[in-house]
Structure formats: C-alpha cells, structure tokens
C-alpha cells in the first residue's frame, strides 16, 4: 500500500533521510523506532506531505503522492494522522472536533456527522465527554479524541507520530488499548513509538532507524530477541538497562 523508493530529505545541509526504500502492505502494522534524531518522525511526516522530500518517490495506493495536479487536501483527507501533541482544536468540543472535517470535506450533514462521531467516541471510550472542551480533558483523553477525529474521515491508513510520548505514564495504556483494537480490526498503521511492549504485541514488522537510514527491518520476535545490526543491538540494550556499562 505504501512504497518508499530512494527517498532523500535534507533540512538545509543536514540530511534527515538517507536513501530510504521500504514498503508497507495493506493491513500491516509497522512500528518505526530508533534513537532521537534518527529521522523516524520525519519519515512518517513525509507520508502526508507535512514534510517535502528532495529526491526519490513515495507511492500510496499505487499513486505518486507528489504527482503534479494531485489535490493535496483530498489526498490528506484519506490519511489519518495522530500527533504527539494531540493538537485538538481548543475552541471546539470533543464532538465538534470529530464532526468538523466530515461536515466540511465529506459533505455529511450535521446529523450524520454527529451520529458517526458519537459512535467513534464510544469506541474510544469517551462518549460521556462528547461536549467537553480540550482543556477539560486529560492528556490521555485528548489523544483518544484525536484518534477518533482522524478515524471520522474513514481513512484506509493511519499514521501515529509518537502518540504516547507526551503522556503521563498512567495514561499511556488507555491510548495503546485503542490502537491495539484498531490493529485488530485490520487497519493499516505506521506507528513511530518508544513503546516496545506495543511493538512486540501488535506490530507485524519493526523498522529500526538511525541517522536517517533504515538499518534493520524484521518481525518483532526476531528484532527483540536477535537484532542483527550492531546499532540496533546497542539501542535495545540501552533501553533495557540504561545504567549498564559496556
């Protein structure tokens, strides 16, 4: 469903993505991990064109996403994006956050949009908070609303950019639970995360990145038990025992 071919990206003189060629199949759950600065966030942000690329190509559902004449807005409306900082719209209620795009972009009328949004909020466990504003919700609740907001457009693909990194530890679980259920329902997902438990339980594949390159790609079982690339081995041992000396 997704295909990266020789993708390179620079921020000025700094190369953030180096010759990335990967693919993701429909229904797959791919976790991208790596140390900070590895380019994993950049990679996922190129998928909905929040970041431009300088060379190479990206195809989603067989179409080149940088093709001339492509309607960027229509393209983005078919991809769900969940941000690290949630980015809920504070001047709207949770329900209104979820009905905004369907009403204005998919032509649903108010009643249809509300019905769909309530169902989604129910699914993420927040139907009782439908009329609350973002400032009245905890971080975990905000992120779940953000997921519902993205799902309201019925996208075939969901992207998650470190969805739990800005949450207090006790709220991480509620968000991961929602993501797990999405995966179980067959959603194609690309997730940038540090949550190794999620990767182990839910991912079909793990991509390990460092300094702009994908250094290792493997099934979770293989990645966590027997990483091949030395940098990946270093990364995993740092995570497991941060105070161990070499």
């Amino acid at each position, binding site marked *: 469903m997704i295909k990266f071919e020789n993708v390179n990206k620079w921020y000025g003189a700094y190369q953030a993505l180096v010759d990335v060629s990967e693919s993701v199949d429909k229904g797959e759950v791919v976790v991208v991990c790596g140390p900070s600065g590895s380019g994993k966030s950049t990679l996922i942000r190129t998928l*909905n064109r*929040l970041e431009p690329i300088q060379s190479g190509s990206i195809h989603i559902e067989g179409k080149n996403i940088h093709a001339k004449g492509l309607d960027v*807005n*229509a*393209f*983005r*409306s*078919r*991809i769900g*994006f969940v*941000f690290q*900082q949630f*980015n*809920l*719209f*504070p*001047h709207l209620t949770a329900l209104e956050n979820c009905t*905004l*795009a369907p009403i*204005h*972009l998919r032509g649903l009328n108010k009643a249809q949009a509300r019905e769909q949004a309530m169902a989604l909020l129910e699914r993420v466990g927040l139907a009782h908070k439908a009329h609350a504003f973002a*400032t*009245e919700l*905890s971080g*975990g*609740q905000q992120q779940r609303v*953000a997921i519902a*907001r*993205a799902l309201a*457009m019925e996208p075939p693909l969901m992207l998650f950019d470190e969805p739990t990194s800005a949450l207090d530890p*006790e*709220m991480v679980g*509620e968000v991961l639970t929602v993501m797990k259920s999405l995966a179980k329902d067959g959603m194609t997902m690309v997730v940038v995360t540090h949550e190794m438990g999620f990767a182990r339980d839910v991912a079909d594949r793990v991509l390990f990145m460092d300094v702009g390159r994908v250094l290792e790609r493997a099934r979770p079982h293989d990645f966590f038990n027997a990483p091949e690339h030395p940098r990946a081995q270093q990364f995993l041992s740092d995570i497991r025992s941060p105070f161990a000396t070499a």
Partner: protein
Amino acid sequence: MSFLEVIDTYWLYFLVGPYPKGPLGGLALTLVLASLGLLLALPLGLILGLGRVSPWAWIRLPITALVYVVRATPLLMVIFWAYFFLPSVTGIKTDQFATMLIALVVFDAAYLAEIVRAGIQGLPKGQVEAARSLGLSYLGAMRLVVLPQALRHMLPSLVNQFVATIKETSLGYIIGLAEVSFIATQINTLVFTLPSQIYMTLGLTYFILCFGLSRLAYWFERRLSQREKPHLPARALT
C-alpha cells in the same frame, strides 16, 4: 465667571456640540467617530492581516510594504493627505467628518493588520498541521480553526486599539472638526479666564473614558487566561 458657572453654562455644548441646531459635536462626536472608525477598519484590517501572513509572496510583499508605510507616517500627515488631496483626486468635496473618518479607517486598518498578524502567528503550529492533516485547505483551516481562536485572543488588543482610536479623534481639531478638544478650545476662547481648569476637565474626560475601557481590556485578558486553564478533577481519570 467661576468654574462652576462655566460647567453649568456649557456642559451640554461640551457633550453634544451645537446639536440639534447644528451637526453633532463634542464628546458624542468623539465617540461616534471612534466607534465608526474602528468598526469600518476591522474588516479592512482583517484582510490586510491575512495578507501579511499569506504564503503567496505576490500578496504578502505589497501588503507588508503598504502597512509599513502607513505605520511610519504620522496620523496628522494621513489626515492632511486626505483633507488636501482627496478632493482634487476624486472631485468630491468631503466634509471634515468624512475626511477624518477615511483617515482613521486607513490608519487603524494598518495597525489592526499587525494585531491580526500577531494573533494568527501566536497560535501553536500544531493547530495548522492538524487542520491540514485532516484535509482542510489553507483557507478552510484559516476560517474554521485559526481565525476563531486568533480573534478570541486578540480581543484585549482590539479594545486597546479602540482606546487609541478615541485619542486619535482629537486630531480632528486641526481640520476644524468639532470633536471634544475643539469644543473645549471654543469654550476656552469664550470664557478666556480659566484655561487650566477647562483643559484639565478635558483631560479628565478623556481619562475616564479611556481608563475605563482599558480596564475592560484588562478584564477580558484575565477572563481569557482563566478559560484556557485546564479544569482537571483531582483524581486521575481512567
């Protein structure tokens, strides 16, 4: 005559000028001019402000230049241009009120443009990213997500701009517009013996008006920051 006699004789003239025997003047004219000026300047200022942040350089650059030029010019200069120049260009002889109004609208719009710009650029970048990620266009995101939030944050600045506009109306004096400063001078010419008291009264009038309004702006700002505070219950939520 004593000062109390002055107040007794001229208080109505001070408030409304020669009305109804002549056009509206005095404090009433000041308020009407300021309100009308700001009201008309708002849509223009909004458009200019959007132009200032526009991602298209062919819009952004000329508008930025225009705003800078107007802001670098004294208001009096703008008034003179309008007063001396407009009639010869448009062929219509505008009266002092219309001239002053046009000058105020143009001048205030340039300042409002900066307030709008600051309001828009003060929003976290993530808001625009989230809106665009949903598929909203640039204008759609502006209309539905950015401006509703930005305009709310701008409210204290807008009230301050209204206070500034009230003070700006005083320059109508120079082209003979019968706003409150002009009326005060007329009264002073008639009475002649109590200038310091008359002008202190003028100052006091402006003070009550402007100070009151800026307290309002302060109250707006307090209410705004209170609403933004998260109201989390004491216990962690599941």
